Structures are given as C-alpha cells and as structure tokens.
C-alpha cells in the first residue's frame, strides 16, 4: 500500500509542476511582444479582416471545388474535404497502391488524374510515367490467356491494344485483378514531367501552406493572364514570397501560397 500512496501523491505534485506551472509559464513567456503573434497562430488579415493563418494552407477553388484561375493553387490535401484543420491527415497510401478498388481510386490513379488536371489548367503536358492518357494508373493484370487493364472499367478502350501478343481488355466489375500478375506499364511519358511532384502528392498534415518554386513558376502564366497583368510582375511577387533554405541547408525553398495570393490581390486587384 505504501508505494501506491506515495505514487498517488507523486502523480499529483508532478501534475501541478509539469501540467500546470510549466505550460502556463511557457504561455506567459510566449505572450511577450515578438513572440505573441506566433503564439497566437500567426494570423493574417486583409483590410482588417482575419482571413486565416500564415502557417495553415487554404484551398483556392470555387464552391464546386474547381480551381480559381486568378489564384495560385495549393498542394492536394487529405485533411477532411481539403485544408480542414479539424481533421489533419495524410493519405497514408503506400508506394504500390496502384489498383483501384470498388470505384475508390488508387494512389497511382489519383496522382495521374491530378497530373492531367494540372496539365490542362496550366496548358502544359500532364503526362507522367505509369499513367494512361485518360489519367488513371497504367496497370495490367496479366494471365497467360487474358490481360486486363485493371483501372479502366468497361466500356473504356484500354491504353494499350496488346500485351506480348495478347489482346488487352477493359476491366469488368466483380473480376479480381489480383488473379493475374500486376504489371505497371511505364509508357512513353518524359522522365521529367512538366507538372512538379508536389502538385500531384498530398502533404503529411494536409495543411501544407507552401508549394515548390517550380510549381509556383508553372502557375505564373495562367494567373497573370487571368488578372490581365504581365507575367514578370507575378514572377516578382513569387520571388518576394519565396523562403530559401534556413542557413542555406535546412529544408527546401518554398513559396507561401496564401501570402502570395494576398500580395497578388493587393498588387493586381481583380477587375470588375
């Protein structure tokens, strides 16, 4: 009994020290000028109205989820319906998640579809290795007598007509693709696709406020056209909102999308 009583008293006193005094002391220190803004979530406001946090990414799409052409687009997000801080999450799909299941697209098909959509939006080639032209994973289920394109349900025309002399069929419902050997097909897409990696993959938090410099550069022309301003002016803003590696070697250079879009609204207000 004696150790249990001692334990109970120890838990209580250490809770007071580590669970009340410590966090409150840190909170008090964090409220001094210079730290206060950070401690309260780095809020950003436009014309005095709070529009979010500099550290939390946002979607820049219309009510139907279509990207707004006048804004730079953030990365794909797996947090709730996208950029939901009450449901932070990654996709958690693995590197060989390449076969769609029951209408649920695989990670590969998701990547292919995003790449195609970004390509169309930005007017560049959206093709990638292991993707079909229609924007799904180019994956075959191979049996000696029968080859199926597993991510292309009938009546779609498969992305290749033949595989090693066997006619490739579209996928019929109820058929188990794992009955055959799963073979991803690389295809003829360039090794260095026009659409950058971060544009087709979800972040860890689902709240990533940044995009790569390459993805920002890719979007500059479309945004400039939508706002009727020279591309050079938009590129200058990208430069301003780019953060390099800390001390020259930590992390990667990134562009803060919310700050960039606010700067755009200020420099090139939308007409009408």
């Amino acid at each position, binding site marked *: 009994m004696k150790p249990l009583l001692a334990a109970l008293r120890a838990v209580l006193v250490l809770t007071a020290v580590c669970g009340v005094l410590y966090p409150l002391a840190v909170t008090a220190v964090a409220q001094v000028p210079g730290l206060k803004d*950070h401690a309260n979530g780095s809020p950003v406001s436009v014309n005095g109205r709070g529009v979010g946090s500099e550290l*939390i990414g*946002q979607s820049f799409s219309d009510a139907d989820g279509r990207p707004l052409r006048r804004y730079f687009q953030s990365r794909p997000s797996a947090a709730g319906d996208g*950029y939901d801080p009450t449901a932070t999450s*990654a996709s958690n799909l693995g590197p060989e*998640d390449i076969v769609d299941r029951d209408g649920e697209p695989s990670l590969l098909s998701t990547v292919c579809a995003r790449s195609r959509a970004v390509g169309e939006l930005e007017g560049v080639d959206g093709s990638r290795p292991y993707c079909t032209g229609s924007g799904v994973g180019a994956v075959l289920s191979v049996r000696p007598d029968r080859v199926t394109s597993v991510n292309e349900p009938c009546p779609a025309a498969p992305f290749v007509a033949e595989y090693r002399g066997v006619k490739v069929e579209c996928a019929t419902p109820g058929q188990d693709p794992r009955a055959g050997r799963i073979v991803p097909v690389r295809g003829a897409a360039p090794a260095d696709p026009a659409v950058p990696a971060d544009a087709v993959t979800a972040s860890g938090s689902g709240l990533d406020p940044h995009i790569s410099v390459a993805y920002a550069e890719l979007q500059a022309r479309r945004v400039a056209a939508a706002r009727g301003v020279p591309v050079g002016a938009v590129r200058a803003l990208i430069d301003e909102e780019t953060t390099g590696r800390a001390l020259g070697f930590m992390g990667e250079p990134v562009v803060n999308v919310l700050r960039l879009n606010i700067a755009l*609204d200020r420099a090139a207000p939308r007409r009408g």
Partner: protein
Amino acid sequence: MGATTAGILFVGSLILVLVAVHVPLGDHMHRTFTSRHHWTAERLIYRIVGVDPDAEQVWSGYARSVLAFSVVSVLALYGLQRLQGRLLLSLGYGGVDPDVAWNTAISFVTNTNWQAYSGESTMGHLVQMSGLAVQNFVSAAVGIAVAMAFVRGLARRRTGELGNFWVDLTRAVLRVLLPIAAIGAVALVAGGAIQNLADPHTVTTLTGAEQTITGGPVASQEAIKELGTNGGGFYNANSAHPFENPTSWTNWIEILLILLIPFSLPRTFGRMVGDRRQGVAIVAVMATLALLSVTLLNTAQLAHHGTVPESVTAATEGTESRFGVSNSATFAAATTLTSTGAVNSFHDSYTSLGGAVTLLNMMVGEVAPGGVGSGLYGMLILAIVTVFVAGLMVGRTPAYLGKRIGPREIKLASLYFLVTPMIVLVGTGIAMAFEGPRGSMLNTGPHGLSEVLYAFTSAANNNGSAFAGLTVATTFYDVALGLAMAFGRFLPIVLALALAGSLARQTPVPASAGTLPTHRPQFVGMVAGVTLILVALTFFPALALGPLAEGIH
C-alpha cells in the same frame, strides 16, 4: 546547392552539435544522479510524497515503486480522459470512449504515445497539458531513473542498493527535463509554434470559404514530446502540422531534442562507472548503427524506387514542402531509432525499402540511441550479451566491467531480449488470423501486412509511430496494442532491474590478460554485430513477407 548536399549538411550539423553538447549534458546528468544535495523544491516534493530521500532501495523495492507510480499514472490519466466533459478547457469535447481512454493512458505512461485518437477532435486543452504532457515528462523520467539504477548496478560492489526511485524521478524532471523543455518550447514559439489556451475559431478565407483555426498549448507539449522521446502529437498530423513544426529550422531543433538525452547518457554512464572510455564505446555503437540507418533511409527515399514514387518522380507523398524528402527521412530515422514515434511525414507512404528501414530501426530494440534511459539500459544489456558470446568463443568466464556474467545474469539478459519479439510476432500473428483485425488494413497485399507488423513493433518497443493507414480505433487493436505496450515496457524494466540487483551484489573480479577489453573498436564492432544478428534472425521472415516482398521485384 542540390537537395542531397543540403541533406548531408543537415545531418552533419546535427552530428556536430551532438558531439559538442553530449559532454556537458552527460556530465550534468552525472552530477544530477550522484549528488547528495537536495534542492529546497525537491525536499518539499519528497515531504508531500512522503518518502525519505536518503533511504536507498534494493532492486525489488525500486521495481515496486516504478510499477506503483505507473499504475497510478494509468488510472489518473484514464480518469481524466473519462471525465473530460465535466472539466475546464474541454473545448466542448465529452469524455473519451473507454477503450480509447485505456489505450491512450497506457500509451502515454509507457512512453509509447501510440495514438488511437485524433488530437484536434478528441482532446481538450486540459487533458492535453495536464494529462498527456505530464506523462511526457514523467514517463521519460522513469526511463532515465531505471537507466541510472542499472548503471549503479554495474558501478557498485557488494550492495543490494540501486538508489531511490522517487529521488531519481524528481531530479530527472526538475534538473534535466524541465529546463531543456522550457528553452525548447520558447525556441519553437519563435519559429511559429502556437502557445495559447484559445478555443478553435472560424475565419472566412480569401475565397470566402470557412476554415477553423485551432488553438492550444502546443509548443510546451511539443518540446517535451521530442525531448522525452515520447512522440504523441497535439494534432493528428503530429510534427507535420505547421503549428507543431512550423519551419525547416524548428524541424532541425526537434530532431536535436529527440537525440539529445539518449546520446548524452553514455557519457553519464562512463562517468558513473569511473571509466569514460566505456561510455565512448557505448556511444560509438549507437552512433555507428544510427549513421547507417540515416544513410540507408535517406538513400531509399531520395532514390524513390517504387511505382508511385517513380510516377511522381519523388517520394513526396505524405511529406511537407518546407522539410523536403531528405530532412523528412532524417526525422523518420531519428524518431524510430529512439522510442519517440513523432512523425513529420507519413511512413505509410514511404518507399518500400524506406519503410522497411523505419521498421528495422524499431526491431533493433531502439538502442541506437534508443529512448531516454531505455536506450542506455537496452544497449548495456546487449553489451553483456556480447561479452557472453565472446566468452563462449574463447572459453573464458565472461565479465563486463569486472562483473561476472553467470547463469543468472545471462538468463535475465536473454529474457530481456525475448520479450519484445514475442509480443510483436505473436501479436501480429493473432491479428492476421482474424477477419476483423485484417479488415483494418488500408493497403492491400504485403503493404497491409506491413501495417499490422508495424503497429505491433511500434507498440511493443514503445515507439508510437505508425503506418497510419491501419484503422486502430477498434476494440481489438485498442486492447491488443495496449497490452503490447504495457508488457513491452514493464517486463524489460523489471528484468533490467533484477539484473542490476544481481550485478550490484558482486565483488568485481580483477582484470587479467584474458579479460575482453570493452572500450576498444573491436568491442564496438562486436556489439553492433550482435545487435544486428539478433534482430536479423528474429525478424527477417516477417520483413520478407512485408516490405521486402513489396519492394523487391
């Protein structure tokens, strides 16, 4: 500068700082755990707890105190979660469900911080800071205390006494963890981590949509979460969340905090046994294995082998732009080499071989450098096993630091190493045998098995990271993983203390020409070899069916 060069400099700068800091910190911990002087605040705590700080305990008494403290901690944390709805700062969240509350209580008390819940939608500020974060401190302190008792067992002669648990616990909290955590927390706020007690509030975004911005005492919890190798995130996204880990340099600080104490404790050990070279040898084994792992994981992630990463042209799924692939891989190595389990990127989406390295890191038993305290006693027991194996080869009675490794000692050491593989493999086997637990897998094929294997490996080794696609908020996983965490933490602790007790009683044998020197590079190589062979033989079949089957084709 290329991404690879920057990634190498990132690792190199961490190594440099660790090399510089482990000496003063190790010496500080040596003073902390050998000093006879009590602070006034500490005396007050001992009076409240009702113990005599100058009375020492034998191993069984020490173990009883550890277990009593942990049992009461579990009950207190369980109660706090269940009553959440009636307490302050609950943010409107009700009591946590019984099985999740049980799993979480064990998880935080065992220094695992496996999370079957999503922080931002389950836990209010009070449970986070006065329940979960308290265990971040004290579970880490328990690990350090047991390590110190174990080292005393090696250092002392002809005594049964290993120290006083309550004194070790209190000093670890007040003199080691609190000061460093406080500095770390303020540094994180400077980078942008939040620290407030605000409710979530809704804003209208630039495009007119609504977004809820969360609040919370995050930085104070984040600092001790890394420093105490705990790993339980304030938010579901853990250290990938911009409010927990806002910049590339806070990421560097968080990795440093994770590695700081585990890499400094060997110095403390060397000082306590009166031969610093012994500490250098132990830290050399840890550093060798750690460097190997960091290199492998970075290489696998940067090479991005696998269908999806090759289509994407980089392993960026589940990683944050500001960290990039390399710094994410380095964090992943640090978190699984220790018992931390915090993540700044999601291991489930890693390349097959990269994911295999994170699994392997935990399977090694988290000794390179391991969790705070648990890494040191784990590595010292491996050194004892190595001495025994070497003794068998040359036909001499094995001894470590003058202590004979007899039948009783080697039985305890062997049992210590059998506990976790038993839990991992039996647990995974049971889960795979039933339809329900199998249905929790998000991914199919070998990757699905990897998810389950990862869960039991993480729980039994008290890591807490996950292949997070697995749905673990089910009664089966809450109960099974809860048991895995409890047995995986406390059976090894009791065995380590029993071993320490039996070593402390001995009269050291004088070194002779036949004694194996345990401070030379030869010994470092042997311990590293024994560590890898033990793991390879135990876990290779399971790894072959999971990540290796997925990654090699």
